């Protein structure tokens, strides 16, 4: 009887070893290693990739906006939905940001940020309600709102363009400035990422996203509030896309009606590459964030490594497919291991 149950190893003595083990087994590890490799190889080829003020800054800055959108996307995908309208939401809020500065001279920057987040969240609510109440697949709904939101944007903006000179210098500085050589935008993205990761890992609500994505029927048996959670996931995605839109305005300085178009594929791509299962239930926002950084860093590294401009999309495609195939193989290996473990325990 004493042999049947070996007490679990006490964790304190070798917490580090345990942590290391968890890290090495995590799905995100592979993708992180890939990222480090890309950065290393590129840096060896051209040290400026990291070791110049701009190189360092761009390494951190360029992916920050996509990181925000990818975090929201990851939350939605983890609950077994998908949000294709993020690019359109980003574009709309970016334009809203410009308009606010133009039409309400002297508006405090913080108010603009809040307005962007709230507006994005509202667009997310529309998605969430349609998906959760009408029980219609998220893919179709958000494909529809992808068109509709973008159309509204074009209708609103026309061929109007917001230029850097239309927005306050302080605001634009947020897009490029840095503290202790870490760009502000990156800090914002990191804060959001850490909060989201913490929530997804340590708060009941966060775990329920995973539960719903893992098995929606079981979630209902457990008495989880499935509808509410799905709507919240879409609000999160919308609000983060809204925040990303405000930051987009700060970073790029010029906004027209097409800002952020095509972002949805990058965001879904980042999440999938980062190990978020497209059928929900597993993956982390960390993974999605690393996926976003990898995606954009590859984009920047390919010309330095010597891949010509025109071939870069093909390489990105191969990398996406490679990542999901790898993920699948790892999952298969895992489930084989579990099956073997069962056979042993049966003996």
């Amino acid at each position, binding site marked *: 009887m004493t042999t049947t149950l070996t007490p679990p190893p006490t964790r304190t003595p070798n917490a580090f070893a345990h942590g290391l083990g968890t890290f090495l087994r995590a799905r995100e590890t592979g993708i992180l290693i890939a990222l480090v490799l890309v950065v290393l190889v590129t840096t060896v080829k051209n040290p400026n990739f990291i070791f110049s003020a701009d190189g360092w800054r761009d390494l951190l800055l360029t992916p920050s906006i996509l990181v925000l959108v990818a975090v929201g996307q990851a939350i939605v995908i983890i609950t077994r939905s998908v949000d294709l309208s993020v690019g359109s939401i980003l574009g709309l809020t970016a334009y809203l940001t410009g308009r606010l500065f133009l039409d309400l001279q002297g508006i405090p920057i913080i108010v603009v940020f809040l307005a962007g987040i709230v507006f994005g969240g509202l667009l997310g609510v529309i998605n969430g309600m349609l998906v959760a109440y009408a029980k219609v697949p998220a893919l179709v709904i958000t494909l529809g709102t992808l068109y509709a939101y973008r159309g509204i944007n074009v209708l609103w903006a026309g061929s109007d363009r917001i230029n850097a000179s239309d927005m306050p210098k302080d605001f634009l500085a947020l897009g490029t400035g840095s503290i202790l050589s870490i760009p502000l935008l990156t800090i914002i993205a990191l804060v959001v990422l850490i909060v989201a990761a913490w929530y997804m890992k340590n708060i009941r609500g966060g775990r329920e996203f995973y539960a719903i994505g893992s098995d929606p029927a079981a979630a209902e048996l*457990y008495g989880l509030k499935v509808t509410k959670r799905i709507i919240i996931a879409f609000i999160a995605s919308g609000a983060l896309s809204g925040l990303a839109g405000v930051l987009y305005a700060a970073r790029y300085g010029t906004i027209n009606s097409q800002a952020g178009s095509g972002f949805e594929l990058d965001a879904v791509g980042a999440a999938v590459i980062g190990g978020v299962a497209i059928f929900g239930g597993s993956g982390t926002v960390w993974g999605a964030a690393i996926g976003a950084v990898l995606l954009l860093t590859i984009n920047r590294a390919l010309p330095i490594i010597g891949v010509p401009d025109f071939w870069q999309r093909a390489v990105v495609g191969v990398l996406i497919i490679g990542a999901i195939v790898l993920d699948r193989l790892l999952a298969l290996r895992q489930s084989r291991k579990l099956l073997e473990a*069962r056979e042993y325990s049966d003996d």
Partner: protein
Amino acid sequence: MTISPSTTGSPALELRDVAKSFGSVVALRSGTLALHSNSIHALVGENGAGKSTLVKIIAGLYQRDAGIFTLEGQPVDFKSTAESKAAGIAVIYQEPTLFPDLSVTENVFMGRQPTGRFGRIDRKAMRTEVVGLFKRLGVRIDPDRPAEGLSIADQQIIEIAKAISLDAKVLVMDEPTAALSGVEVDRLFAVARSLRDEGRALLFISHRFDEVFDLCDTITVMRDGEYISTDAIADTNVDEIVRRMVGRDVTDLFPKQEAAIGGVLLEVTGLRSAGVFNDISFQVHAGEIVALAGLVGAGRSEVARAIFGVDPYDGGSATIDGKRIPPRNPSAAMGLGLALVPEDRRKQGLVLDSSVSRNITMAIQRQLAKLGLITSGIENASAQIWASRLEVKASALDTVAGTLSGGNQQKVVLGKWLATDPRVLIIDEPTRGIDVGTKSEVHRLLSELAGQGMGILMISSELPEVLGMADRVLVMREGRITAEIDRANATSETVMFAATHATEQHS
């Protein structure tokens, strides 16, 4: 009706004349049940008697159509499982429902994790509690592994741990032991008894009478959705209970015709699949009905699926008339004259959203096609024949199959496979969830088919059905055939003994 001596005062939970229908299927006519603190109450009844439905009403998953439901004297009306949980009711469902991607620990605590500051989930506390629970249940499952890939037994244990950890006043267990082995069952019983002694009310559902008589204080019998009786365990015996469960002379139900047994049709030799079944060998002759009996989870369905080619297997072979049935190719098996009526008719047997006529002709599309083309007219003509032969109760041939009652759905599946004109029919749980009248119709049909020279392999968990229909009974236990019993020697004792005991009864 006598009240158990161990229960005094008002019941902790009471249901009276509770009814529930699903469309035209009446699952529960008059469910009556009273659970008392300090007591373990057994609920028994045939398959489809309405036990699980009753459980789901208690859990708040279903809402009753009529009747009274009180908790400690107060009428309650649960709208969701969250409400019943909050009211102190823990439920172990018949089918384990875990989140495959989440860890075992998380599965136990989902939705009610212990939290510390800032609402942070206290993982340490969670893990400690799970380890304690598993120790109490005497199982070795890594609390940190994902639920994905766990065996049914392990999943069932996690369900049990989950329910126990709720620390509920009322604990409902719907066939928790169906997949468990002796050791685990003993542990479970020890825990159940200690819970009883702490003053809780427990409900225990099982088809294993030894367990029921070992554990419980009181027993309620249900039949066809109706309450039959409640007795103190000490005042009754197994024979009495079975008589009440079945409620009629069993032999009347099974109009077995004598058929001439011919040569070997289906021959299975040394079939094995790692972790599922091992060394399966048997034969089915023309005109013969062979029953494959055993407890749920013994692996009978897996054997059937492997023979038919839906599941892969690791070794061995199956032949029809000496011709090898190629693995993983159901359409080739169909070509050789094999038909499989699968156990889960709603998922595997039918395309629920498709019409009756499409479903009936689904397995014979290629035969029906003229010049490679097929039309609704051709399908309807063929479906007409089988629907009327089996007397499917449907208003028209384009009625959506999912809207039919369970028994009629089963008839459609039968029709679909009989239409292929098979030589060998494997039929998995032919009458699960079917009402009594339909049941005997199905049995008569099986008899008739055997009489016409078809070889039938019938998988069934219903003992009376096995005993009433089979020319020969094969018993499976934990993935192996443990006994072969001919009609003359087949009794409930011999079959159940082989299904539950490791040592083989017959040499």
